């Protein structure tokens, strides 16, 4: 089981409680689709992803970005049980969506960048370490049901 320090728990709760999911979610997903364009392979039915402007203005991207953040919140609310929290989603991503699990890390890196841009100086090394540890646990849980 993952051991969380008090600082890590407080930091994760703090970051997510202050976050506007409808801003951060779309920003992180669209950044991922722009910075790592091969990730677009999973969104063939999302319509216009032809350039950065189209991606950033795409309502389906925005909606899905928000969905992802809402899902991350479940992990935030169940930090001692993240593996179980994402068991279903892991199955979904592997068996139905067939997403290469490497992509989870790419999206996670983009989310880190978006959070860093939002928090500025407050995104210290210690805060980054806690955030990346949380994301690493989520990413690992999402990759568990692949075989």
């Amino acid at each position, binding site marked *: 089981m993952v051991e969380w320090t008090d600082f890590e728990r407080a930091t994760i709760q703090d970051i997510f409680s202050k976050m506007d999911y409808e801003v951060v979610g779309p920003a992180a997903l669209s950044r991922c689709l*722009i*910075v790592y364009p091969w990730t677009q392979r999973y969104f063939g039915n999302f319509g216009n992803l032809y350039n950065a402007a189209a991606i950033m203005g795409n309502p389906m991207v925005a909606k899905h970005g928000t969905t992802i953040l809402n899902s991350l919140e479940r992990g935030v609310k169940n930090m001692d049980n993240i593996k179980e929290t994402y068991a279903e989603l892991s199955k979904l991503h592997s068996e139905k969506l067939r997403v290469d699990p490497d992509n989870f890390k790419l999206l996670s890196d983009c989310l880190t960048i*978006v959070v*860093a841009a939002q928090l500025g100086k407050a995104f210290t090394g210690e805060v980054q370490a806690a955030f990346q540890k949380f994301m690493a646990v989520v990413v690992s849980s999402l990759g568990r049901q692949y075989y």
Partner: protein
Amino acid sequence: MSLTDKDKAAVRAMWGKISKSADAIGADALGRMLVVYPQTKTYFSHWSDLSPNSAPVKNHGKNVMSGVALAVSKIDDLTSGLMALSEQHAFQLRVDPANFKILSHCILVVIASMFPKDFTPEAHVSMDKFFCGLSLALAEKYR
């Protein structure tokens, strides 16, 4: 994934905006790398103080960023431009090249935190490609 003319222009433009803060960026990036990725501390056991903002960290952050500045100036041929640095990293420092990705990520995080409006997704993709190219050139002489 080589750098297009658009990428090079984006990197030069970004560098123009951030170069004045290069020392601060380097110190922050290196300092947080040592905190976020503790395994990287193994390369600096000879330093008296590994905490962020310590003298050795600040000084070395400066060194790293002058390497980045060199890379920007040699962006049309990173391999030959960074040859000497590659030899140094390969034969003397022997830093595992996996760490180049780690430090690149930390540098991008710092740029995002210090220049949120300028570090757009378009700027991000070009900078990410640039650091990939830089890391590749740095690893050129390893084997």
